[in-house]
């Protein structure tokens, strides 16, 4: 008879590991024995004839042989390790044994050491993400646009979730078995993916260009010279850097698809950096009218 397997894609937050252990023990009671634990993907084997108790450990192992032997001596079977530092163990369940026989941390110190190993790493990452969020916030306030907003929200949420986890892990009396926390972790990973993808896609879709190639002096006058046709894929703030000089007054405009000016400047010299244009979706171009020679450089992003 072939072996029957089942996969599970349930994710648990690190600070909720007790919940994962409880779920594994319950599955074992129902005949599903974990044979490979993972961060996103676990494998269970059907075997109703045994019952295991599971435990999780978090650490970097310097001596795998000594590690596995230390557990085996007390009846623990090593299941597997996950790349991120979690190790799965199981022990055959014997109802005559006291519950204490299924603990792997038997003093407060070693328990706190394990929780702190994770919490200190996560604290470093959480603070780094928090700093990124802060930098993104400053940039967002100075030059608001959609990609910056997405980036700020992503960093702020990831940092917030992680630092909350650090708080739970470092608090000795906090429960490591929380209902509903798996949803938060799913959101956490979804936001990493969506935030990164959203930021990249929104940034790539935006027009980025400069027309500095015509910055060389042009001597002939021009009348409504249109160039730099560009598409705005989504309504947002776009920023214009201008550096133009002429002998006689000139008119520079940004025109929409109907030829209506959404931005106009008249004068012999205009310089401006990060001039904010709030542009709806559509097609645009630049237009220049000048009765004398001029030089120009325009950047848009």
């Amino acid at each position, binding site marked *: 008879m072939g072996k029957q397997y089942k996969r599970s894609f349930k994710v648990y937050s690190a600070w909720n590991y007790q919940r994962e252990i409880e779920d594994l023990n319950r599955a074992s009671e129902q005949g599903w024995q974990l044979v490979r634990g993972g961060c996103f993907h676990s494998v269970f084997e059907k075997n109703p004839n045994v019952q295991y108790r599971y*435990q999780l*450990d978090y*650490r970097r192992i*310097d*001596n795998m042989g*000594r*590690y596995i*032997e*230390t*557990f085996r*001596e*007390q009846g*623990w079977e090593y299941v597997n390790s996950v790349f991120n530092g979690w190790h799965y*163990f199981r022990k055959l369940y014997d109802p005559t044994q006291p519950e*204490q026989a299924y*603990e*792997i*941390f*038997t*003093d407060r*110190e*070693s328990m706190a*050491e*394990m929780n702190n190993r994770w919490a200190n790493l996560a604290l470093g990452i959480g603070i780094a993400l928090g700093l990124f969020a802060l930098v993104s916030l400053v940039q967002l306030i100075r030059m608001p646009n959609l990609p910056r907003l997405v980036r700020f929200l992503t960093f702020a949420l990831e940092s917030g979730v992680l630092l909350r986890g650090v708080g739970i892990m470092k608090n000795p009396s906090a429960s490591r078995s929380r209902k509903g926390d798996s949803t938060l972790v799913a959101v956490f990973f979804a936001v990493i993916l969506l935030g990164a993808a959203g930021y990249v896609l929104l940034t790539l879709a935006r027009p980025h260009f400069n027309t500095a190639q015509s910055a060389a002096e042009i001597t002939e006058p021009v009348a409504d010279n249109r160039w730099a046709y560009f598409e705005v894929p989504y309504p947002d703030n776009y920023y214009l850097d201008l550096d133009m000089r002429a002998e006689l007054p000139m008119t520079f405009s940004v025109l929409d698809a109907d030829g209506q000016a959404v931005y106009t400047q008249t004068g012999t010299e205009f310089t401006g950096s990060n001039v904010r244009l709030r542009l709806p979706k559509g097609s645009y171009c630049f237009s220049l009218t000048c009765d004398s020679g001029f030089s120009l450089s325009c950047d848009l992003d």
Partner: protein
Amino acid sequence: MKKSEPMSESYYYILLCLAKGANHGYGIMQMTERLSGGDVTIGSGTMYGATGNMMKKGWIREIMSDEPGLERRRLYQLTDAGREALRAEIARLRRMLDNAEGV
């Protein structure tokens, strides 16, 4: 800096068990339970962490058993530094007990 910090119960019992001769993790665990009348148990995670930390401190070292039937079995052995640490802890505990006299 403080000369020595109070030891955790697990560290203390591991050193105490090893003071009577080299032993493996399971032996230490059983001896600890016996000595403490079942009050102190040392789970595998605690044992691995404590022995690893004490090897880093130089209090114990790992040796391979050459006893027949136990070849290649990992044993822990107390070092001089470990014996000294244990002695200091016992002195600390004794002083605390002495201080409690007459209360």
